[in-house]
């Protein structure tokens, strides 16, 4: 199966909601009127786009309807997908520097999927023939180290660990030395979950980021924020505050295989266009990680074109 198809497949269970809603609009004679456009806007809000992003999408759709003098259903749907895709921006992939150490720092709120994504990434790069190292820098949560250890076994990537309760910065410090000694290509750092409003925990994260900069100035460090696709508007606060503390380079939208359409991604892209969405988590398995595809994502919000 091609990657794009797997991406779509992962979204399949998700896609019915909005498309069902759209179907239920019973677009009269295949044309949209004002009232139905309002309903469409509300469907977007119900998909967690939030009012500002939903309004933005619909403004673009309405402008297109006016300028093209076309309110036919298929046209409106196409413009809707196009508007969502525009806001999400072009497809951007997580790129590694080929000639030096890459450090991927996984950050995010509690339970958003950092450890699982660390494991999935280790498997992905291991398969590509890269030397991968995992760092268990969540020394706080019960069994966090053991959880990552299972992923270390699954992916075959060795793991650097300290005892529970140890200073996470010290783990990172050791992991960087180990990465150098083994001339690793990729070092994946799993950090403890933290709510973005906790000042001391955010300061701890900033410190980890600083230590990486200091200890591995020649490495390419990318901070990746995991965002649970079921999250509502709080994701905006997450993206903002994690960026401030640890210079987020990209987002990973996890749990897209689940109940939610992940419309929050559009809200985040609209508010913080400088942070690209790079990857999507589509399950709990080691292989359930895909490059994020704005086009497939936008289309997944819409019903399949009607036959005939």
């Amino acid at each position, binding site marked *: 199966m091609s990657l794009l198809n797997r991406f779509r497949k992962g979204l399949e269970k998700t896609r019915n909601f909005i498309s069902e809603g759209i179907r239920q609009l019973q677009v009269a004679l295949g044309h949209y009127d004002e009232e139905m456009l309002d309903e469409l806007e509300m469907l977007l809000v119900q998909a*967690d786009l939030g009012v500002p992003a939903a309004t933005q999408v619909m403004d673009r759709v309405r402008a297109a309807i006016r300028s093209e003098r076309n309110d036919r259903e298929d046209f409106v749907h196409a413009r809707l997908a196009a508007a969502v895709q525009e806001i999400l921006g072009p497809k951007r992939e997580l790129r590694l520097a080929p000639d030096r150490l890459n450090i991927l720092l996984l950050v995010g709120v509690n339970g958003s999927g950092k450890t699982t994504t660390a494991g999935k990434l280790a498997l992905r790069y291991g398969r590509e023939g890269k030397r991968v190292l995992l760092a268990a820098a969540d020394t706080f949560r*019960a069994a966090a180290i053991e959880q990552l*250890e299972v992923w270390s076994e699954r992916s075959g990537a060795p793991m650097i660990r300290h005892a529970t309760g140890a200073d996470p910065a010290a783990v990172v410090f050791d992991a960087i030395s180990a990465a150098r000694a083994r001339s690793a290509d990729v070092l994946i750092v799993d950090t403890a979950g933290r*709510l973005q409003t906790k000042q001391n925990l955010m300061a701890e994260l900033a410190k980890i980021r600083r230590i990486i900069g200091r200890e591995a100035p020649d490495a390419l460090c990318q901070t990746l924020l995991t965002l*649970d696709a079921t*999250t509502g508007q709080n994701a905006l606060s997450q993206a*903002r505050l994690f960026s*401030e503390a640890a210079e987020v380079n990209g987002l990973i939208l996890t749990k897209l295989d689940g109940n939610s359409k992940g419309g929050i991604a559009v809200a985040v892209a609209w508010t913080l266009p400088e942070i690209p969405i790079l990857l999507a988590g589509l399950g*709990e398995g080691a292989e359930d990680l895909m490059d994020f595809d704005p086009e497939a994502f936008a289309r997944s919000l819409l019903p399949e074109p009607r036959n005939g």
Partner: protein
Amino acid sequence: MALFESLTGRLQAITERMRGRTRVTEQDLKAMTREIRLALLEADVNYQVVRDLVADINERCAGMEVMESLTPGQQVVKYVHEAIVDLLSIGNNKLALSPSGFTVIMLYGLQGSGKTTMAAKLARHLKETGRRPLLTSVDVHRPAAALQLEILAQPLGVEVYSEPQNRDAVEIARNAVARARYLMRDVLIVDTAGRMTVDNELMDELKAIAAVVKPTQKLLIVDAMIGQEAVNIALAFDQAVGLDGYIMTKLDGDARGGAALSIAKMTGKPIKFIGTGERVEDIEAYDPERMASRILGMGDVLSLIEKASRHLDEKKAQQTLERLQKNQFSLQDMLEQFEQVQKMGSLRDLVGMIPGVNQKKLAETDVDDSIVDRNMAIIRSMTPRERENPKLLNASRRRRIALGSGTTVQQVNQLVNQYEQTARMMRSFTGGGSKRGRRRGRGGLPGMGGFPF
């Protein structure tokens, strides 16, 4: 402070336009309900629920007369708050324990919502109230799931039944019940694996587990940060295995938790507890009033006030109150209040505790502790007479004070303005010295510019 994107704040502008009028017009109401709608959607209250609620508010407020004691904005907020508290007060917020003497509590929910942590928290709570709980993990999917529960439970002295090698969740569940009965425990808490309700396989597994353990209480664990989908998730779990109540976790952050309202409205089921941190002791009873304030972005003002009162010097507070009522609140009182605030810890952290506070703006705004220091220095540079009677503060005195405190005249002016505002606000809260009606004492924190509700 433009920190609060609370409903009161949102309604402020509309209220300003209405100044002097005695009746809320249809147009005012329309503008207000628009703001209410936006505020609720921003809090992740489900769209359908928002729609119903707004219709309800519209009805309640139509043709409303403007009360003397409240601005129309405050009045509408009061209605909205009441309506939400009503919705959030459904059902029994206590855990139902089985009369047979053997209670089974089954926790379920989406991945990462906080089930395992909550299982340990509940065990701790039950043990403290004299029960003898047994925990079991039937999560065969997530790596190290059972170990996580064991580590959490170990310091509590609560045993965990698990079979790490067994991949059959239903079998473990069956054995756990037998074990609990054999050990003569009165409560069995079953921690299940996280699952999406669209995952048929895992939903079937959950049904099979439920059939074996026959739960007395089937509790959904929901993350406070969840979006619009919360209702469908709750309904799907209810349909599959039944739902007796729910627990909202991660309320220690700034998530508004609008899902609490949506789930209450759409399922009619009560909240049993709330989770407010990662440690096993971070479990609290649920309070509809606080939840309503939170959803409306008014912050958990009660918590703040509690925190404040723990550090407040009772006698001094009483004195201040008396002086307030006699309309004698002076800069000296304000200085004492600043001292009290300082004792409570960092101002920034306190304000940061308030959900709905725009954290970015907070970071940019100088809610800096140094402001408190600065203001204290300014007051300390005043003579006792000036502190008692700020009217004396003419331009040359202000220059002297600025010089003495190492500040600028502008900063002195700011402080005096803040004092006047605070004094006015305090008067309206206590009812003292003012013709306005008496309001319940849920005022703002003194000296911090005050919270609106």
